């Protein structure tokens, strides 16, 4: 147990270091941008009204003071960390003075929900199916499944989402393709809302599942096909252990370990995929928030989204890393 806690502690320090470096790098990149948010806002303001050049100059000075963009970059860096540790990511500039954190907090549950449910679904079902397929390589059902996975898996998230959008948006309009829930539904704990929520989540989740499924299925199938040739499995079969126990306790247990590592490695990619899917279906998550922030030149919000993403993904990998020794007795013994 001591060894495990030591390992957890070291890993946690590493997590903090990774987050620190990642966020600092993001800060640097956003502040290197030549876009001045004051000019952005000013541009929008003057496009709509007929402010005289003097008025524009006066407004520019006032906004620069207000946004604090004229401070030296080191100063801004320290302010940033001071605020971050308090949980405040500064005011967003495209919705001044709403705090960036508020905007992210509004969008995050949507992304997390979509991400968590689809990842869990694909991981569990994909691995299960893959294991069964690997165990029974001649079953035609699993063969067909394999072919389907091979066909869909390499296609980029965007293209799959796009194809679904075209099919269900124009040719078979039976599923909603826009937004998080229906226009005339009040959010709340009503069955109507939950149904609408689930309805609107079907297509985005489906595209994520379609792309993600194949990877787990094929990987697991390959792993299992190697494992079933191992001695202990052959021995168990000969000894008359029933099929279910062999698959469940012997094969899947051992194949799950490399898959967990793979899960950790691909979480970053799945997160990106979720963001992309959201953009296609106009799902109100972090994806559209990020794209908007970029287009508005709102580095405060871009930084906020990037910070949360990095923390979330690094944190998730950390949790998986912690789970690993608990599942693998060989490592626990080390």
């Amino acid at each position, binding site marked *: 147990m001591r060894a495990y806690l030591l390992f957890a502690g070291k890993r946690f320090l590493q997590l903090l270091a990774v987050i620190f470096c990642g966020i600092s790098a993001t800060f640097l990149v956003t502040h290197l941008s030549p876009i001045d948010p004051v000019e952005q806002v000013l541009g929008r303001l003057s496009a709509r009204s007929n402010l005289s050049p003097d008025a524009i100059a006066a407004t520019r000075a006032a906004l620069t003071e207000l946004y604090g963009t004229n401070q030296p970059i080191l100063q801004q860096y320290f302010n940033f960390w001071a605020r971050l540790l308090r949980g405040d990511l500064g005011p967003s500039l495209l919705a001044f003075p709403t705090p960036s954190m508020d905007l992210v907090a509004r969008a995050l549950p949507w992304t997390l929900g979509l991400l968590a449910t689809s990842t869990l679904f694909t991981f569990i079902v994909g691995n299960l199916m893959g294991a069964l397929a690997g165990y029974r390589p001649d079953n035609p059902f699993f063969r067909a499944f394999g072919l389907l996975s*091979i066909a869909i*898996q390499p296609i980029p998230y965007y293209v799959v989402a796009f194809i679904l959008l075209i099919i269900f948006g124009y040719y078979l309009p039976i599923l909603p393709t826009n937004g998080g829930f229906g226009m005339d539904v009040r959010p709340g704990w009503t069955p109507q809302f939950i149904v609408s929520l689930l309805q609107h989540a079907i297509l985005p989740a489906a595209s994520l599942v379609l792309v993600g499924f194949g990877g787990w299925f094929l990987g697991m199938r390959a792993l299992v096909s190697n494992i079933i040739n191992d001695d202990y499995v052959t021995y168990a079969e000969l000894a008359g252990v029933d099929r279910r126990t062999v698959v469940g306790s012997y094969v899947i247990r051992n194949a799950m370990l490399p898959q967990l590592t793979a899960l950790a490695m691909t979480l970053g990619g799945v997160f990106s995929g979720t963001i992309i899917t959201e953009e296609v279906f106009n799902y109100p998550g972090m994806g559209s928030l990020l794209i908007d922030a970029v287009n508005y030149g709102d580095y405060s919000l871009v930084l906020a989204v990037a910070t949360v993403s990095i923390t979330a993904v690094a944190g998730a990998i950390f949790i998986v890393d912690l789970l690993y020794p608990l599942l693998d007795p060989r490592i626990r013994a080390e």
Partner: protein
Amino acid sequence: MISVFRDLIRYNIEFTIGLVLVGLVVAFAALSFISPVDPSLIYLAVPDQPPSAQHWFGTNSRGQDLFWQLSAAFRNSLIFGLTVAVLSRIISITVGLAAGYLGGWVDRVLMFINDIFVSVPIFPILVLFYFVLRSDLDTFTLALIMACLGWPFDARLIRSVARGLKHREFTRHAVFAGMSTRKVLLEEHLPYVMPIVFATFMNNMLWSMALEVTLAVLGFTNLNHPTMGTVLYWSNQHSAIVVGVWWWVVIPVVLIVITFLGLFLLAMSMNEYIDPRSRLRRMGV
């Protein structure tokens, strides 16, 4: 080398299919070198014409012949994928071999950097780069940036192989004989690592091309440079499907699917070949 090829074609139906598909796409892209029209010009043809004898893939709303446009687009995308794959192989081989062989603090530092790159979600970072560079983000810069983001997974793989090699007899012999570290890595270890490099090369191509399509469709790349993604971008901008110009969407999507499928089959079959257990099982031993 030829025998490997022959084996693959003979025993592995997926490899054959993949080869055929990729071959088709490469041939199509190669046609762009003899294109009679300049794909960057607009309004040279009558817009919105369905596929016909004169325009094999029809024309789009920008007045461009879709056949030559797509040919140039796929050529650019394939070159992009190759560039990223080559550049990131160089980085991952260097990092993987060095970390695996040298061990110690070099290993720890490199793996620490590796972990950072793994936990950073790539898409927001790319968007961030676009945010900073805006119009300076041309294709080569993007390829460079993606190469710098695409090496972590494979570096780890190479590192584990290198760690194994470190303790082998021939390595010890080479070291005793006075070979420098660089020579050991390049001449002794590299050939062992090549099969993995090759398989991951394909994967990397897939990954980078997919990312490029995504960025382009959202408008975050140089839009006047025809690639798979920018073709979709423009068709979206002109509401192609709704207006009825379906060939501007369907044909590129079909070609994209063929490309990715082909590359994937190649990658998968080569992965299978590299692992002797699966290779033998495939060959029916």
